[in-house]
């Protein structure tokens, strides 16, 4: 959590590479950074950014900081740890940015991972009218499930569709229009389709005729579809009776708690035990299941009890959150805070929970000052004392603690004293409480968060973004107009991170997803690299609210540019997409297509993306001393397979991942503008192969194929020979690779 200003990923405010046309004037909206006296230095070109592997680490740290921020506000203590998984594509020098908690229980648009379906099945508790739902889905293939939020609609839908559709389940884009039976959805046999939300106006104007047409399409395709509706969805009741099934009132909350409790035990390798085996839980369980909680909260309660059994939490921690008196105790605590200093610190700690005390204190002071200014407009009346509050008192009064945490900064890992609430769920409670109960404070807190969104500290600006996202759940449009869009308009990497942070939590809410999609489409209008357009491009790479095809279609339009800022954003989005295993094929297909476009700018951006993937991606392979270049590994997997899948689609043609990688690497090696950087990357690969003999043979085979695609190995031979001759050059690897080129009989 160090100040990363100096080492932060720079903006490409002007192209300094050979692409002179890309140069642009400093942005009008450029502002002085809070702690930067000098103007921001000119950034490198898009190509320099793509070919600099240290930027991969920053991309990873961004993702990690984002996940930690989300985890902190959702009460997941410990945040997201480093997860190093062999045989999975990650970013150079970074491990794996995506973790199991990536979607935080929500379902990404597009194919739903098998693990998500399995997780839903393991803990699923049937509602009373489950059989009716199942029979209706079997019989008519299309069902509109109507139930209140928190009922467990998504879990029920995943379970039903997973059970009835052997080929898997896709979540439809939230802007799918059911009123149009010709909506472009490719229905596949034995596949289930989930539309997680139906907007009010769409629900109100939905006709039976449209649903009949959908049903016919589904029957012809052999597919099934479930549409989830809120209890208050304004439907034409009588007309749609055949399709609507109301979720029966949930009657067995105890079973739901037990199900998640037992699933947690089994996952931890413990025997399946009943809750009655733990008398210390009895009273709390009785109390909690007696309340009308959301299914998600009951599940969380079950997992919390499981954590107690596993020794990861105390029963008091669980009681603190779920017991009936918890809410009133919390209110009493907040209301008893003596003054604005304390309340400001409480809010700052809620936003920055788990961050260094100094950072929290500074942010708290900023907020306290803002509150004071709001209450006492005359600045001469300020009476605040610098030594008014001692840290120990503050922390104790906050029901917080100071603890040590390890963080990986740009310079390496370091331990820091951090402040955090004892109750991991308190950050969210504090923010929601302030927002709900103190409307007068809205403006002050909003402005304060907006300022934090420009902080030079990556963690602070992302935390601020996520906090705005949390507050926006109740009034998204307000947050969009007053904070999110102003951030986007800054057209700066820092605020862009705050924007993405602010969109992450709303993007997990089905009812907000169509709005966000529409907002992104609005932002994408035009052709200049405006702040909104660049932010939209950056957001598309990480928000799970569009299908890959939808994202790539929009990225293609954005990629037809010569503005470095936009090229970098497109490359980062493409890189983030390629880290998702099921998105790599479409990404490779898109890059193959773009890099053959008649539009020079689009070709240029595509090759820039290829260069970035070649530099940024890596895989830890069992039996290798060094990580493999990601695309080499992808290509080699196909080589090891007898009949590799032809999953990469380019127009009407299908190709294997290996063929795609060979073509793309060949194109970037042949492109005059990228040739130098591309050969430098190959040089790196050869040096890696010098250290790790296991990579020599695969690399030799890949280079032989690339040489064939480029029309001959002469240049490669030349470089390999030259690299080998250098002092401490990769002689053994180069010899092996030259031999491989000979063996593959590449014509000279």
């Amino acid at each position, binding site marked *: 959590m160090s100040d990363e200003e100096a080492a932060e990923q720079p903006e490409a405010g002007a192209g300094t590479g050979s692409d002179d046309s890309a140069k642009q004037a400093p942005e009008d909206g450029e502002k002085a950074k809070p702690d930067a006296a000098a103007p921001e230095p000119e950034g490198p070109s898009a190509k320099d950014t793509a070919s600099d592997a240290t930027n991969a680490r920053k991309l990873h740290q961004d993702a990690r900081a984002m996940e930690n921020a989300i985890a902190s506000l959702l009460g997941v203590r410990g945040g997201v740890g480093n997860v190093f998984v062999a045989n999975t594509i990650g970013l150079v020098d970074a491990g794996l940015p995506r973790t199991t908690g990536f979607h935080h229980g929500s379902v990404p648009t597009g194919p739903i991972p*098998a693990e998500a*379906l*399995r*997780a839903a*099945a*393991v803990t*699923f508790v049937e509602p009373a009218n489950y*059989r009716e739902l*199942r*029979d209706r889905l*079997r*019989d008519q293939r299309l069902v509109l499930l109507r139930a209140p939020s928190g009922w467990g609609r998504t879990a029920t839908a995943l379970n039903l569709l*997973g*059970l*009835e*559709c*052997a*080929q898997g389940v896709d979540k439809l884009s939230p802007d799918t229009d059911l009123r149009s039976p010709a909506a472009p959805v490719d229905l596949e*046999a*034995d596949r289930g389709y989930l539309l997680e939300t139906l907007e009010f106006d769409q629900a109100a104007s939905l006709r039976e005729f449209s649903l009949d047409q959908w049903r016919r399409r589904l029957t012809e395709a*052999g*597919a099934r579809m479930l549409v989830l509706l809120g209890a208050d969805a304004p439907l034409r009741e009588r007309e749609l009776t055949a399709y609507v099934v109301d979720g029966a009132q949930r009657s067995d909350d105890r079973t739901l708690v037990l199900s998640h409790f037992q699933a947690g035990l*089994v996952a931890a390798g413990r025997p399946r035990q009943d809750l009655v085996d733990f008398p210390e839980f009895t009273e709390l369980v009785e109390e909690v299941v007696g309340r009308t909680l959301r299914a998600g909260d009951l599940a969380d309660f079950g997992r919390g009890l499981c954590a107690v059994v596993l020794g990861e939490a105390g029963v008091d921690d669980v009681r603190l959150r779920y017991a009936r008196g918890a809410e009133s105790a919390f209110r009493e605590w907040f209301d008893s805070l003596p003054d604005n200093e304390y309340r400001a610190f409480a809010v700052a700690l809620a936003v920055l929970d788990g961050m260094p005390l100094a950072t929290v204190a500074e942010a708290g002071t900023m907020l306290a000052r803002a509150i004071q200014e709001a209450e006492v407009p005359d600045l001469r009346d300020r009476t605040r004392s610098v030594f008014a509050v001692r840290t120990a008192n503050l922390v104790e009064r906050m029901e917080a603690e100071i603890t040590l945490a390890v963080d990986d900064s740009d310079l390496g890992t370091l331990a820091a004293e951090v402040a955090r609430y004892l109750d991991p769920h308190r950050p969210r409670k504090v923010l929601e409480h302030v927002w709900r109960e103190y409307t007068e404070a809205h403006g002050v807190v909003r402005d304060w968060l907006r300022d934090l969104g420009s902080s030079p500290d990556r963690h602070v600006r992302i935390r601020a973004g996520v906090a705005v996202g949390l507050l926006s759940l109740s009034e998204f449009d307000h947050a969009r107009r007053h904070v999110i869009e102003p951030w986007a308009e800054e057209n700066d990497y820092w605020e862009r991170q705050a924007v993405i942070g602010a969109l992450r939590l709303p993007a997990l809410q089905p009812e907000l997803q169509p709005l966000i999609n529409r907002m992104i489409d609005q932002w994408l209008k035009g052709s200049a690299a405006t702040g909104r357009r660049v932010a939209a491009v950056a957001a598309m790479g990480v928000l799970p609210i569009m299908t890959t095809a939808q994202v790539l279609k929009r990225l293609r339009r954005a990629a037809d540019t010569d503005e470095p800022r936009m090229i970098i954003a497109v490359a980062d989005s493409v890189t983030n997409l390629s880290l998702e295993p099921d998105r790599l094929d479409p990404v490779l297909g898109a890059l193959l297509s773009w890099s053959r476009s008649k539009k020079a700018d689009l070709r240029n951006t595509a090759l820039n993306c290829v260069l970035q993937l070649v530099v940024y991606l890596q895989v830890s392979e069992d039996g290798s001393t060094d990580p493999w270049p990601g695309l080499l590994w992808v290509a080699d997997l196909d080589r090891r397979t007898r009949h590799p899948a032809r999953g990469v689609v380019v127009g009407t043609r299908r190709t294997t991942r290996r063929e795609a990688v060979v073509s793309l690497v060949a194109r970037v090696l042949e492109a005059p503008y990228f040739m130098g950087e591309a050969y430098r990357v190959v040089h790196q690969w050869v040096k890696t192969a010098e250290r790790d003999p296991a990579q020599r043979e695969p690399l030799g085979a890949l280079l032989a194929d690339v040489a064939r695609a480029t029309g001959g190995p002469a240049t490669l031979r030349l470089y390999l020979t030259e690299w080998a001759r250098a002092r401490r050059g990769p002689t053994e690897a180069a010899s092996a690779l030259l031999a491989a080129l000979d063996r593959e009989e590449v014509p000279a």
Partner: protein
Amino acid sequence: MDLGTRNRAILVVDIEKSSERTDPRKAALRAALYGVLGGALRTMPPHRVDDLGDGVLAVFDSDVLPVLDPLVGDLVQALWRHNATVDPPEWMRLRLGVHFGLVARDPHGWVGDALTTAFRIVNGAGVKAVLRAAPRAQSIVVLSDAVHQTVVRPGYAALQPETYRDLLDDGRRMWIRVPGYATPPVATGAPAAEPVRVEAPPAKSISIKARGNVFTADTIGTVDARVGLGPAS
């Protein structure tokens, strides 16, 4: 439960490829099978379950409709839930055969030609081939022609006749459904209107494992299938 000869519903459940597994894995699968059966059978009419080693025979003192709906549906649901806890290569995949007819119980076990039919339909080479051809399936439901004609074709309950297709396996007509698939993924390429014909394996033999013993014969007679199953519990 009256043990006299009477019309009863029969369910045979068999674990796919059980013989290829190690003993500890077989034991785990058996435990899982009984876990899957336990909940689903709880609400069924009076019945008796006999162990077959890598499967079970359940005979119900009722007509066949409740076996098809809800029992088979509940079993498929419970199986889905069990398999969600393991990786696909470790899935337990079941063949569920349903028939009905006159059966009686003597001190050694069940007796009746209907049992032979139930065992034959669930162990047919064609049925096994269909399940093999459906790697994403977790079960296959096999009905005798009699069950199909009597209960499914007329459309009782939520049985959806269109999800079944007929299969000619060693000259015997049966009806199959693969849960999760709109139509069973038969591998023969036969048009949907034609029943899929599957030739009998060259040397017909039937193995029945019961209480740890394996009985192998080239045929199942009218009364020999349950011999050795031990006393009634």
